[in-house]
């Protein structure tokens, strides 16, 4: 069992959710400030409101934790599975949806779910392929429905919430607590960490630290703190990186079939070729390529850099186009004025 600091008295009045109205529950979730704890940090209340607006067919608890070396959600489920399932039921009640699914990739969690009797929730076991934790891939895997990248899953009747988010929702609604701590994998070890703990204080070593998992985390800045979206803190491995040997394993593993190796090559040689922008946009940063890379190259750092360049380029182009439109407009107006002046000049005065 992970040790958790004892909680103070509840901040809010506990709600008997099975009798409460949806708007009451939503207001409470909003008031408690619950956001997506899988990493995106999307406000949970906004997601549920959108789910109510479009009508929801399936609510999915996302317990597919497939970032390498991160076990925060797994240990949370092992310790507090009933809380997570209650959170799922609360969301289901709030969205008038009784198709509740718990998606896991861990055999032991799946086993402990089957040992206990939860007839209202179905448990789906998916592989721990590094991309399965992403919500669209998960929906595709379980329900075989693809959601275009231009739409949210909630627009197609799916609401996917991370299990830690559901845990927080359960505590906020049922018990009246604001989320003030979460399970974080701190250098391969899971523990409850209070929010706003400086990340530097978690590390005993002066090595560089990544905010997030080894594969998908970003380099932590000096005064970074643990947030609701922090699922892991890991050591940086950039020092260990060797040259790319073009094994092509990153291309093999990419769930979007992107030419990762080529993207790395153009990025490293600073010779960005035309036509690769779409590839950089399509990457959803699952980190699968970083995991398989035998040379431990921080591929995702390079791809993120490429994404930034793409968006900066795009902003430049947009600004340029705007500027040229304005110039054309000004020139046109000026020629209009000149023409009017000419006309005035050559019109004979009446008197």
């Amino acid at each position, binding site marked *: 069992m992970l040790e958790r600091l004892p909680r103070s008295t509840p901040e809010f009045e506990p709600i008997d959710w099975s009798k409460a109205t949806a708007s009451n529950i939503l207001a409470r979730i909003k008031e408690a400030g619950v956001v997506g704890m899988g990493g995106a940090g999307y406000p949970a209340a906004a997601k549920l409101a959108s789910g109510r607006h479009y009508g929801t067919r399936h609510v999915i608890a996302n317990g597919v934790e497939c970032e390498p070396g991160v076990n925060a959600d797994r240990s949370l489920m092992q310790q507090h599975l009933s809380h997570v399932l209650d959170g799922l039921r609360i969301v289901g009640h709030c969205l008038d949806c009784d198709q509740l699914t718990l998606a896991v990739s861990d055999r032991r969690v799946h086993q402990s779910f089957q040992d206990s009797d939860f007839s209202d929730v179905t448990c789906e076991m998916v592989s721990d392929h590094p991309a399965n934790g992403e919500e669209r891939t998960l929906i595709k895997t379980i329900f075989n429905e693809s959601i275009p990248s231009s739409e949210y899953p909630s627009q197609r009747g799916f609401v996917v919430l991370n299990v830690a988010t559901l845990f927080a929702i359960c505590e906020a609604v049922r018990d009246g607590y604001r989320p003030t701590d979460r399970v974080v994998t701190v250098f391969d070890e899971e523990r409850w960490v209070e929010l706003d703990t400086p990340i530097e204080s978690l590390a005993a070593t002066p090595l560089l630290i990544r905010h997030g998992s080894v594969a998908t985390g970003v380099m932590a800045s000096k005064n970074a703190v643990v947030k609701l979206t922090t699922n892991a803190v890991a050591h940086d491995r950039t020092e260990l990186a060797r040259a790319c*040997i073009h*094994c*092509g394993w990153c291309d093999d593993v990419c769930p979007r079939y992107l*030419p990762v190796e080529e993207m790395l090559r153009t990025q490293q040689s600073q010779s960005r070729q035309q036509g690769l922008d779409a590839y950089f946009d399509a990457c959803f940063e699952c980190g699968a390529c970083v995991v398989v890379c*035998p040379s431990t190259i921080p591929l995702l750092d390079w791809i993120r850099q490429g994404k930034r360049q793409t968006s900066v380029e795009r902003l430049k182009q947009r600004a340029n186009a705007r500027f040229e439109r304005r110039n054309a407009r000004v020139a046109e107006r000026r020629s209009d004025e000149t023409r009017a002046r000419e006309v005035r000049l050559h019109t004979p005065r009446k008197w």
Partner: protein
Amino acid sequence: MVIDRRQRTTTSVMVHVMVALLPGMVVQVWLADWRTLVVIGVATIGALVTEIVCTRSTRDLSDGSAVVTGLLIGLCLPSTTPWFACLVASIIAIAIAKHAFGGLGNNVFNPAMAGYGAVLLAYPALVVEFDAISGATALEQLAHRGSTTIEEVSSTPAFGAFGAANHEWVNLAFAFGGLYLIAVRVISPLVPLCVIAGIGVAAFMLDDGGSSTSHGSPMFNWFAGGTMLTAFFIATDPVTSPSNRAGIVIYALGIGVLAMLIRKYSSWPDGFAFSVLLANCFVPLLERIRHRQTSPT
């Protein structure tokens, strides 16, 4: 044993390759003589020392690629090769073919084959292969046999049960090691399959039933010379092969067909060094296939 690619590093990949080379190495030493060990040892040590000199550090030694290059050179060279020729081969391989191009990952030509090929051209008389038992090897006899038919030439002791004498067992052992590499997912089966198919198809089309101009059956060519070593260990070098599937197929088929053409139409008994180097030249071209092939989803 880790079959999961997630746990792999460059070093562990190279260690897997070394393990897979072991059976072939043992059989080769067993069937030839102890001098094979000297050749392999000199080539490997030469490669290691050159690597240290070129990088001026020992950091890159730990990735194991220099050892593998040295081992491959030692396995290609016959046991009668003088020590300085082995040294020259490994120095050219590491210093010129690898580090002059920018080190591991940036080399255009397969280092082992560049070193071996350079020695083939520089000392043709010294590295012509003579078996301790049977004199000239089967491929050697086929290349310089005058106007004898296959039937006449294959009655000499240089020919074995289904391939070249001795070399058939060495080839089998390398194929066995290669299957191990496929089983642990270090290499994909595509490259060796295409190399073997390439040489098989070319040999089948050039085989006219055993006249004085034919060059043996596909079976003979699969189990003679360095076929299996090339198919499983040299053509599969990720750095010098294309990274898209269509490119890989063309590249590997090309190696097989070119090797067979060199065996038949040139005075070199075995053509793998030159066919691999020629195929390497086309890799930058083959890399361009992807642009038209895939579109982002």
